């Protein structure tokens, strides 16, 4: 290995690591606030990437119909749940939700998707993807909010499996790659840096800083942190677990699909690529002990780097090396931290 190769691998590793860091943070966020280990996070990544690819090819991605269907189911369930006191405010919210989904369907059908500027295509993708997060929480997890963490994990796995199937149905078995955000490249010493690499790193850093500020400075961010620290305390102040669950799932959907849009120009993604990607974010989250955000981010970048270098030295064992990383950290964690009882 010479310096040039090391730089190339490092560039790859940090790019992937930045994405893993974003995913690790989402996993941590969702887990601390709702006790759900968000396995379907990877599907947000692939759905985001594949939707962006479909839009760039000028095809309607069919995701808008999923959005409409889930919205209708949600409104139906809400109407049934609140049948005795269906206030005008609730009806208004429902109408708005359905209207949003219908507008998305119309937009996707009417707009000349392939000719749109890329920023608009990305916005459209996010507009389709982000509502799926709260919808997923409402339909699959909210009815089980008080269930033990193990039940939530099982449901999470089930949702993941179902979404992989839905992905195959919506996007087909072919992989997809999108155009890079810009074509320029930069010279860094002996290697060329693709501009997409810089995009990934810049957007990731920007997102992490924004998240940090949101959670430190805004009352909504603080409310989510409070729910993670003490669920009963938060409820007593009127911070509802439903609000917290939907908000964190919305954030996770946003971060996941944005990650998908970011990496789609770098790697070919398939309907079932999400699991391995989010699993690597999970390794980062484990390194952070499922508690510490900075440790998780650093751990995730380390995962990216180790992955890149092991690809060079022992490409067949790439995944094995990355996932074996978990074991020493689990041992270290189990020796240094106190055992926390499950709340139930």
């Amino acid at each position, binding site marked *: 290995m010479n310096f040039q190769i090391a730089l190339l691998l490092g560039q790859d590793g940090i790019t992937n690591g930045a994405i893993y860091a974003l995913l690790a943070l989402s996993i941590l966020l969702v887990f601390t606030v709702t006790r759900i280990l968000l396995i379907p996070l990877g599907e947000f990544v692939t759905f985001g990437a594949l939707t962006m690819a479909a839009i760039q090819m000028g095809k309607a991605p069919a995701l808008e119909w999923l959005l409409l269907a889930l919205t209708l189911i949600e409104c139906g369930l809400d109407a049934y749940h609140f049948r005795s006191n269906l206030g005008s405010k609730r009806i208004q919210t429902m109408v708005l939700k359905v209207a949003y989904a219908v507008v998305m369907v119309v937009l996707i059908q009417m707009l000349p998707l392939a000719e749109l500027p890329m920023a608009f295509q990305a916005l459209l993708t996010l507009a389709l993807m982000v509502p799926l997060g709260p919808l997923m929480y409402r339909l699959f997890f909210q009815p089980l909010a008080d269930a033990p963490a193990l039940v939530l994990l099982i449901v999470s796995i089930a949702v993941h499996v179902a979404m992989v199937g839905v992905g195959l149905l919506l996007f087909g078995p072919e992989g997809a790659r999108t155009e890079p955000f810009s074509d320029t490249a930069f010279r860094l010493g002996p290697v060329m840096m693709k501009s997409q690499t810089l995009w990934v790193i810049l957007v990731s850093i920007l997102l992490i800083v924004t998240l940090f500020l949101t959670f430190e400075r805004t009352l909504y961010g603080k*409310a989510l942190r*409070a729910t993670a620290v003490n669920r*009963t305390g938060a409820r*007593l102040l009127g911070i509802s677990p439903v609000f917290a669950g939907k908000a964190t799932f919305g954030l996770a959907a946003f971060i996941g699909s944005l990650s998908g849009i970011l990496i789609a120009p770098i790697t070919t993604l398939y309907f079932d690529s999400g699991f391995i990607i989010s699993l690597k974010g999970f390794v980062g989250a484990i390194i952070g002990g499922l508690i510490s955000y900075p440790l998780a981010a650093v751990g995730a970048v380390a995962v990216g780097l180790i992955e890149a270098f092991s690809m060079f030295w022992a490409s067949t064992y790439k995944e094995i090396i990355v996932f074996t990383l978990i074991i020493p950290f689990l041992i270290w964690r189990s020796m240094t931290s106190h055992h926390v009882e499950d709340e139930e």
Partner: protein
Amino acid sequence: MSTANTSTVTNTGPGKPLLEVKDLRVAYGKVEAVTGIDLTLREGQLVTVIGPNGAGKTTLLSAIMGLLPSKGEIHFDGEDYVSPEIETLVGRGLGLVPEKRELFNTMTVADNLLLGAFQRYRRGDDSYEQTLSEVYSLFPRLWERRQQQAGTLSGGERQMLAIGRAMMGKPRLLMLDEPSLGLAPLITREIFRIFADLRRQGVSILLVEQNARAALKVADYAYVLEGGQIAMQGPAAELANDSRVIEAYLGLASKHQELLSS
């Protein structure tokens, strides 16, 4: 609905009923912890619920707050609730300071207080900053510690923070569960002094206390809870002179205090 209370005394007095509980029942599995309680609290009143450990006092408060599923009727501020949702009740002006305080230990004192105003912030009510300065002037200790993590506070400061946090929601009725538990007598006195301030601000109080002597001294009306039922009720001053109450609750407390002082 049945009114299962055999007692003929009720909490009559000036002011509209703010909280009315009728035939409230709470069960943990097959065991009923609260078996048909009727309770009234009028606007501006301080009502106390005293009783031995395990009488169902905490369960009663949790059910009124909507933390536990219950059967029976809860009327609060002119609305009826059956197994109410906490968020709705908080929005309507009900606050609970629980026995375990339930603070956000890894967040600062200032953040803990601000979160108390979450629902007001959400409604677009900006006056919570004024409430914040009111809370700080009521508890200067919290102002000194505002940048400290809640987990580092002493027992008394934690209780002040819990009460201050509940006040940030501008409750019309504040329910307090054992506010003096584990506190030194001097701090207990300080906490009880706050109740007068709160009442001056128009907050009604439902106080659950083991320190029956102190509770009966500040309360207008009192309920004695035993085995999940109301055993006795009446104006606090009358109950404080009731021989059964003195024997069961006040006598023991005074003996206890003698032991402590000797």
